[in-house]
């Protein structure tokens, strides 16, 4: 009797066995070591699949046969083989103590390029942007890592990561496409919107990173290799899109002061003015702008010169530069509402960063939202004594001279402002105080079913700031009108909060109705007709409900209705329905836990 899966000689495999291949077999097929295979998979973006039937056992990893044949034709495979052969030669030369040969061979190590792979994996630019999250997180992580000799993280690569991350941040800040920020325990999250793609990345806190032993840096470095190349190309494309030359040439003085980001900002800002300079037909009335533009036209010839000229610009006058930027930006028509909102959030506000605040993060964020920043140190745009500074960001309370004209706020204030898109009152964020809770902008509170107290406060503030709905006169509008009160509202006791919430709900209902009516008016439906229609509908349904209620006891009616429908469902659907119900219940339980904790906390505070 032939074995179970007998295949006659000369007959091809069929089904899953033909479509998939296990990892061990794949490495044998490709004649590579497991390490090389891993590297190839990482670079080519090939991942295991789940065959419908795991023909070689459950515990094995399966790859698509197509993927493997795809790998087999990969020129990179040959390159890696050459590299290995070359490494052997070097080793041999070293063993023979032929230093000269070894050195020569080392110099001529075969290299490979990944640009073709990037194009292959991301045929369009949008594809690349879509997959940029991991890339950015990794590059930012390595930018903050120490160079470890043993782990083969070279200083060069860390510098490269740093450069790439700064370039990316400069672009985001220049185009004002940063949308959300969040200080978490893990680091600072940013979310930007580039070409309609939401890109989220995490930068670690600017502290010495903890390196653990359970990490294989070879794998991470392979990933990083791909990501570095990818981000380089993406940056190139993005810089090109705003008419700035890439790679940027930085002011060596600022670079030396570890203020690369600022240097980049300046570079990007000036680079972007090339566009208006080229078409000089646009009449420019402002003399200052004129002169600047002239300067820029001169500069266009050589970027190095440009950097130097930039250097000559009065360094304590970035306002002029910003002005220039704004003017040039007004020409862009394709800017959406969101960007404009972001751009103008910190407009005409001067910030000063004290020591012990995350400088790069704040520099990036404040610039991205249209503010002007300076910090303590050399080469800064303006000094601490500048009278125009509106906000000074301080973390540790100090005894130094305090200016009455400015607010001294904690860093969290900037992040909260950015997330709320309004200038929040700074009183709660004063130095030395415990700031209000920091909320994640990535959570949809409505969907989650639980709205933290401070989120509600912020919502109110937003509503008042926008002033799109006039508060109704008969309702108690004091908590809407006065933002200060609203902050105080944060520590208001629970019953009051509940009342307020009820009122707010009412208000929202009224608002909604008002809007609906407005919409209807716009669409030309007469009010009375709709109203009567609605009424009749309502009354009809109510009548029905009423009847039902009369017939069936109220408590069981809903239940019965559920059961009735459940009876008729197929088993599959019923299972699904029950699963959904369970998950909903879990969600509710979570919210209940939160509420319970909140209640206890409030009780302990008051008691």
């Amino acid at each position: 009797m032939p074995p179970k899966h007998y295949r006659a000689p000369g007959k091809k495999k069929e089904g899953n066995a033909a479509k998939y291949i296990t990892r061990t077999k794949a490495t044998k097929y490709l004649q590579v070591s497991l390490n090389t295979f891993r590297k190839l998979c990482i670079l080519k973006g090939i991942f295991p699949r789940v065959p419908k039937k795991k023909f070689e056992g459950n515990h094995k990893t399966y790859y698509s046969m197509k993927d493997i044949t795809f790998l087999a034709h990969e020129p990179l495979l040959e390159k890696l083989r050459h590299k290995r052969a070359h490494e052997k030669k070097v080793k041999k030369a070293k063993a023979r103590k032929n230093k000269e040969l070894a050195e020569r061979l080392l110099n001529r190590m075969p290299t490979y390029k990944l640009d073709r792979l990037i194009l292959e994996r991301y045929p369009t630019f949008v594809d690349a942007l879509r997959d940029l999250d991991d890339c950015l997180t990794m590059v930012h992580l390595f930018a903050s890592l120490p160079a470890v000799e043993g782990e083969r993280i070279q200083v060069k690569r860390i510098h490269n990561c740093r450069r790439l991350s700064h370039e990316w941040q400069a672009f985001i800040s220049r185009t004002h496409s940063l949308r959300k920020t969040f200080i978490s325990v893990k680091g600072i999250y940013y979310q930007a919107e580039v070409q309609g793609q939401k890109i989220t990345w995490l930068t670690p806190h600017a502290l010495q990173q903890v390196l653990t032993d359970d990490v294989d840096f070879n794998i991470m470095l392979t990933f990083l290799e791909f990501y570095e190349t990818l981000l380089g190309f993406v940056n190139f494309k993005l810089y090109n899109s705003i008419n700035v030359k890439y790679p940027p040439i930085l002011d060596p003085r600022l670079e030396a002061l570890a203020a690369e980001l600022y240097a980049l900002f300046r570079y990007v800002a000036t680079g972007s003015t090339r566009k208006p300079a080229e078409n000089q037909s646009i009449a420019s009335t402002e003399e200052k702008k004129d002169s600047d533009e002239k300067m820029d036209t001169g500069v266009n010839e050589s970027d190095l010169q440009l950097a130097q000229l930039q250097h000559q610009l009065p360094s304590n006058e970035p306002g002029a530069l910003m002005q220039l930027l704004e003017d040039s930006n007004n020409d862009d028509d394709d800017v959406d509402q969101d960007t404009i909102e972001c751009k103008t959030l910190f407009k005409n506000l001067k910030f000063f960063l004290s020591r012990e605040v995350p400088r790069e993060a704040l520099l990036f964020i404040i610039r991205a939202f249209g503010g002007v920043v300076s910090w303590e140190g050399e080469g800064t745009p303006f000094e601490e004594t500048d009278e125009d500074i509106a906000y000074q960001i301080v973390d540790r309370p100090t005894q130094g001279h305090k200016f009455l004209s400015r607010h001294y706020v904690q860093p969290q204030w900037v992040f909260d402002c950015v997330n709320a898109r309004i200038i929040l009152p700074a009183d709660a964020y004063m130095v030395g105080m415990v700031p209000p809770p920091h909320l994640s902008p990535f959570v949809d509170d409505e969907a989650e079913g639980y709205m933290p107290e401070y989120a509600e406060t912020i919502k109110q503030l937003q509503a008042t700031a926008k002033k799109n709905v006039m508060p109704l006169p008969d309702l108690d509008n004091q908590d809407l009108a006065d933002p200060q009160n609203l902050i105080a509202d944060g520590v208001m006791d629970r019953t009051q909060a509940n009342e307020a919430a009820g009122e707010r709900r009412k208000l929202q209902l009224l608002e909604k109705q008002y809007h609906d009516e407005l919409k209807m008016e716009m669409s030309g439906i007469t009010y009375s007709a709709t109203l009567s229609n609605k009424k009749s509908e309502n009354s009809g349904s109510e009548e029905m409900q009423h009847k039902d209620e009369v017939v069936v006891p109220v408590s069981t009616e809903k239940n019965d209705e559920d059961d009735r429908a459940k009876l008729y469902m197929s088993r599959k659907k019923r299972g699904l329905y029950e699963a959904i119900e369970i998950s909903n219940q879990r969600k509710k339980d979570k919210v209940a836990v939160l509420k319970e904790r909140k209640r206890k906390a409030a009780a302990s505070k008051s008691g």
Partner: protein
Amino acid sequence: MGKEKYEESSSDEEVNSSSDVVEASSDEEVESSSDEVEASSDDVESSEDESSSDNEKVEESDSSEDEVAPRNTVGDIPLVEWHKDEEHIGYDIKGRKIMKQPRKDKLASFIEGADDPKNWRKIYDEYNDEEIELTKDEIKIIQRVISGRTPHAEVNPYEDYVDWFEYEDKGHPLSNAPEPKRRFIPSKWEQKRVANLVRKIRAGLIKVSDQHKEEEHNVYSLWTDDTDSVENKKHGGYVPAPKPKLPGHEEAYNPPVEYIPTAEEINSYELMYEEDRPKFIPRRYLNYRSVPAYDKGVKESFDRCLDQYLCPRTRKKRINIDPESLKPKLPSRKDLRPYPTTCYLEYRGHMGPVNCISVDPSGQWLASGSTDGTARVWEIETGRCLKIWEVGEVARQICWNPSPDRPILAVVLEYDVLLLNSGMGDIDIQTKMKELLHISEPGATEDAGDSKSAVTWIQHEKHDGIRMKHFKAVLSIEWHFKGDYFTTVVPSGDSKAILLHQLSKKHSETPFRKLGIPVTAVFHPSKKKFFVATKKFVHVYDLSKVEKIQKLETGVREISSISIHPGGENIIVGSKEGKMCWFDLELSTRPYKTLKVHSKDITRVTFHRTYPLFASASDDCTAYVFHSTVYSDLNQNPLIVPLEILRGHKPEHGRGVLDCKYHPRQPWLFTAGADSIIKLYCH
């Protein structure tokens, strides 16, 4: 002490061996550095025994001077032991005894040792019984030996090698040919090679190291506008990696108070399984500067990398639907009225659970049987109990004769079936009934061949009816629609399990032989068909031919009751696991629809005779009312709509509703409960 001695003796031997080699004049060694003296004084103290007579020393040295081998000839024997008690230590070469030296007393030897600065270099030779004084050279030799060098300083271990033969003028083993010319001219091959390299470098094929480094920043516009075309599509369904989860409020450095777990909650995490334990425990930092570096940052990034290249990816449809939309769109209940919805009347009076009810064909009377041993007749509209029969046993089932001019009640007891005259109807009917229910001769029925032992028809004196005595326990009874025939089911009756009786002839027979254990049997409402339900199947028989037509597979575990649609083409089957199956006989032998209705046993399913309604009663104290439209068009499937759940009965001993029956003309439902109440639900 023994150990010490051993050491001493071994050192003696060393000295002996060396003393042969170096013949030093001990007398010359008078001067010695003061350091040595001091060092030696310690030695002296430690080795008192050693210091033996000073006088012998001179003799010994004399004897050693004459180059003779040791004068003692006893050989290598343990001298100390063997000659302990002798006065000699051996013999000299001439066979004379060598006498022991007189022992010195310890004090004297010590003083002597302390006085003599050279004492440290004296060694007692046990074998010859003498004291030897080592010379300076000997000491040096000892030191060299101890430090692992050659004993004599003048020996050179690395002397130049001197060939053991001479090969001057002996010819050379290698070629002696003169140097060839090519040794003196530049290599042509090398020239070619260099030329090749130069050519390659010029062509740019080989890069000199400086050029190499320049090409670091070669980025260019990779994506041109034409790459947006779709032809660059991925093969094999590329699945992008899912994006990492975005942080919630709890991950903030300063989360709201309610997101921070209390100390007890954190402790309770310890008790959880490691997989269930939350990976991240929120903490609150009062200001930004106090936030530490995240210790798992690199690890998490690494895990993400692993996920990206090691995890199989498949596209899964995320179902993000409103659970309400899963519910089928049922026709509005409003349109399907009338149907029973509310409890209208309760018939109270039974003392035990009401097992069975039956409504008379006119719709005026309701009969019920209970475990309290009574059967009752109620007036439906008023709820008045009209008649009570004390049957004495548990009434298992009760059934009105479906023909209106035969107001006969059939009551199933344990082994008996009682046919009772209900006493309804006018005088004509009553006289007819009396006639019908009278058995003239008790033996008259016994001619019924094989069923002879199965059933006996007896006149029941007490209630003025007929008592049919079965051979085994009877489970159910069902009348034929014409009212003359009826069937009883005796589950344990083997080949006589299904009995067919004819009332007018008082005759019984068992036409169906091969069956399993039947549960219930029903007549077709209009045709000559007969349905027998066994545990898992429903058998359909043709009565005229007495043969099986169909076998319906229910797929349930145990059938409890069946009911036939008045049209006759549809059957519902209730099971003990709470499932109800709808069969369309024209369609298939498998259920058209199976509804998981009840959580407990279904006790009864029943169709309404005129309205498109059916109902099921169950032990979970509910009765369900369904709408069922059966279309005459064969292509259209029957419409089944759950309408109403009727509650109201209370559970008693784990039992709920025991029976349900529809009113023959009105959309009313009667339910009999284990709480000894009968309820009437009206629309």
